[in-house]
C-alpha cells in the first residue's frame, strides 16, 4: 500500500446524509474478481443516465471536480453493505480523503485498509468545509495526517482525531496481515489454550 502523504487537492461537496455503499458502487459492479477499475463506476446511478451518458449536474461530472481528491459528505457516510468495492471505487477514482460528521463502522475500517483517510469532524466544521468545497476548483484543501489537520482554501485549520495504530499503518503504507503474523506465537498460544477450554469449537 502507498504511504499516505500530505497533499493539497480539490474537495468535492456531496451534501447528502446516509450515503450507502449501494449508492457508492451498485451491485452490478460487485461481480469483478479484481480490486481495480471501479473508479469509472463510482456513484454510478447518480453519475450516469439510463443510456450511460453523464448527468451534468452530478458533482463529480462537473469540470471543477473531475480531479477531486477529497469528498465532503453528510453524516453516516458508507452505511449498508460491507462491500470493500466502495473504497476500491473511491480510491480508483482518485479520492484519497473523505470528510464527514460520521461513518458506518465497516466502511470506516475498510477505508484505512486501502490508503483512504476518513476524517471525522463536528457537523458545524463539516458545514464550513462543505461551503468551501462548493467554491469549485479553487477550493483546494490541505490534508496533513501527521499533524492531524485539514486546512480549508482560506486557511482555516481544523484538527481531527484518528486511532494511533490506523494512523501509523496509513502513514507508513503497512500491510497489517504482515504485522499480525509477527504475533504468530501469541495466536498459537491462544489457539492451544482455547482448544483445551472449548474443544467443541
Amino acid at each position, binding site marked *: 500500500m502507498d504511504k499516505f502523504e500530505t497533499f493539497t487537492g480539490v474537495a468535492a461537496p456531496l451534501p447528502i446524509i446516509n450515503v450507502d455503499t449501494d449508492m457508492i458502487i451498485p*451491485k452490478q459492479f460487485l*461481480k469483478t474478481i479484481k480490486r481495480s477499475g471501479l473508479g469509472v463506476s463510482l456513484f454510478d446511478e447518480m453519475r450516469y443516465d439510463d443510456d450511460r451518458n453523464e448527468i451534468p449536474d452530478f458533482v463529480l461530472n462537473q469540470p471543477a471536480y473531475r480531479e477531486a481528491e477529497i469528498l465532503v459528505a453528510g453524516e*453516516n457516510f458508507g452505511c449498508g453493505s460491507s462491500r470493500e468495492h466502495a473504497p476500491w471505487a473511491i480510491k480508483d477514482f482518485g479520492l484519497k480523503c473523505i470528510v464527514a460528521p460520521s461513518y458506518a463502522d465497516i466502511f470506516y*475500517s475498510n477505508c484505512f485498509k486501502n490508503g483512504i483517510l476518513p476524517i471525522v469532524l463536528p457537523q458545524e466544521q463539516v458545514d464550513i468545509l462543505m461551503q468551501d468545497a462548493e467554491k469549485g476548483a479553487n477550493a483546494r484543501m490541505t490534508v496533513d495526517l501527521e499533524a492531524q489537520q485539514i486546512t480549508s482554501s482560506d486557511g482555516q485549520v481544523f484538527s481531527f482525531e484518528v486511532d494511533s495504530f490506523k494512523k501509523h499503518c496509513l502513514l507508513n503504507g503497512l500491510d497489517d496481515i504482515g504485522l499480525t503474523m509477527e504475533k504468530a506465537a501469541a495466536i498459537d498460544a491462544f489457539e492451544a489454550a482455547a482448544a483445551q477450554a472449548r474443544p467443541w469449537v
Partner: protein
Amino acid sequence: MSPKTLYDKIWDAHLAHEGEDGTCLLYIDRHLVHEVTSPQAFEGLRMTGRTVRAPDKTIAVPDHNVPTTADRTAGIKNPESRIQVEALDKNARDFGLINYYEMNDVRQGIVHIVGPEQGWTLPGMTVVCGDSHTATHGAFGSLAHGIGTSEVEHVLATQTLIQKKSKNMKVEITGKLAPGVTAKDITLSVIGKTGTAGGTGYVIEYCGEAIRSLSMEGRMTVCNMAIEGGARAGLIAPDETTFDYVKGRPHAPKGAQWEAALTWWKTLYSDDDAHWDKVITIRGEDIAPVVTWGTSPEDVLPITEYVPTPESFTGGKVAGVRRALDYMGLTPGQKLSEIEIDTVFIGSCTNGRIEDLRAAAAILKGKKIKDGLRAMVVPGSGLVRAQAEEEGLADIFKDAGFEWRLAGCSMCLAMNPDQLAPGERCAATSNRNFEGRQGRGGRTHLMSPAMAAAAAVTGRLTDVRKMMTDGVAA
C-alpha cells in the same frame, strides 16, 4: 470480578493479543465465505504465498450471484456471475476448504441461513463473514459481524481480526407482541426509533420478554438488521430455545462435549449490574405491523400511518426525505395502506427461514395474489425449501400464484437476474430499501413475511391484521 455484559464475556474469551495502544487481536471461531467478497482476498493470499490458517473453521457457500430458477443446474448463464462462483469453487479446492457447499448441493443457501442450520454457529463464538448481515448469528449469543475483503484476507491468513472494543448498548423489548406483529416489526421499529446511525460504535444486546418469547428464527431476524441500525453486532443471550435449536445439528457438539459446551453456554448472559453505555426500552404492546416508506431502513411507520412531510424532519434529513419521496414516487399525506405494488419478494437472510414461509403461507392459504402482480418466494436454503415442500407450504404459494424458487440472495440485492425494473414497486421481506438496491429505479417497501403476503393478495400495502380473525390468519 467486575460485572460484565455478554459482549464483554465473549470478547474476553477471544482476546488473543492486546497491544500497548489498545489494539486487539480477536480470535475468530467461524469464518463464513461467499463468492462476492472473497476472490480478491484469495488472490491476495496467492500473491503473498500465504495459506488459510484454519480451513476447518472456514465455511464457504455461493449465494449472492446464483440464479434461483430451476435451470441453474445447467450452469449460470451470466458470464461474470459464473466466473465468480467458479472462482469460489477453485479457491475452496486450492486452499483446502472442506466445508464447502457448492451451488447444487441441497444444503446450499444464503450463508447466514446455512451456518446456523448446519450447526456451525454456536453460542459464545466469534463469527465473521465478508457480509454485513453476519449480525444474524448474534441470535445464538455469538459475537458476529461483517468485515471487508481486506479483513477476509486477514482472517484467512491469521484466524484473527484487528479490533477495538465497541461500547455496550441494551435494547429491551418488554411485554408481549400483539397478534400480527413479528420479529421483523420489532427490528424495524427499533431502527425507526434509533436511526440508521443510532447503533454506530456499539454492540447491541436485545433482551426483554418479547425477545425471549421469539423462536430462533425470529431472533435471527432481529439480529440480522442490527447492522441497519448502525451497530457492529447484535446479540441475544442463549437460553433453552437456543440449546434446543442447536442440539443434533450436523456440526453441533455431541455427547460429553455437548455437556461441556452447555455448561459454558449457560454462563453467557449479562450480569445484573453490568455497565451499559446506552439503553433503549420499547414496550412490545406498542409495536405495530410496520412498513418502510423511504430509502433508508429508518424510514419506518405503522401501516395505519401516512407518508410524512419532509418539513416534519430536521437537519440533513429534510433534504434526505425530499429526495426519498421523489425517488419513491410518493406524496406527503398519502395513506400507506393505499400504496399499490407490482412485485412481492419473500426471502433473504432476514426472512427466508421456515417460520417466515409458514407465516406467509398462513395468510395466503386458499387465496390468490392480485391479478398482474409478480410474486416470488426464494427459500433461504435448499433444506428450508425441502421442508416447506414437505409441509405443503410450497403448494400454498404456487396455488396462490407465487413463483417457487431455488435458494439464494436473489432480489434482496439483485445481483442475479431477479431484479426490479425502473419505477417498479416491491413489497419485500429483505433488509434494505436503498435507492437502486433491488434494481435501478426500483422502489422497495420493507415488511414482515405476513405483511408481504397480505400485500400480494390485495395488490397494495396492507394491514395484515385485517386478514386475521382472533389473532390467526383467516
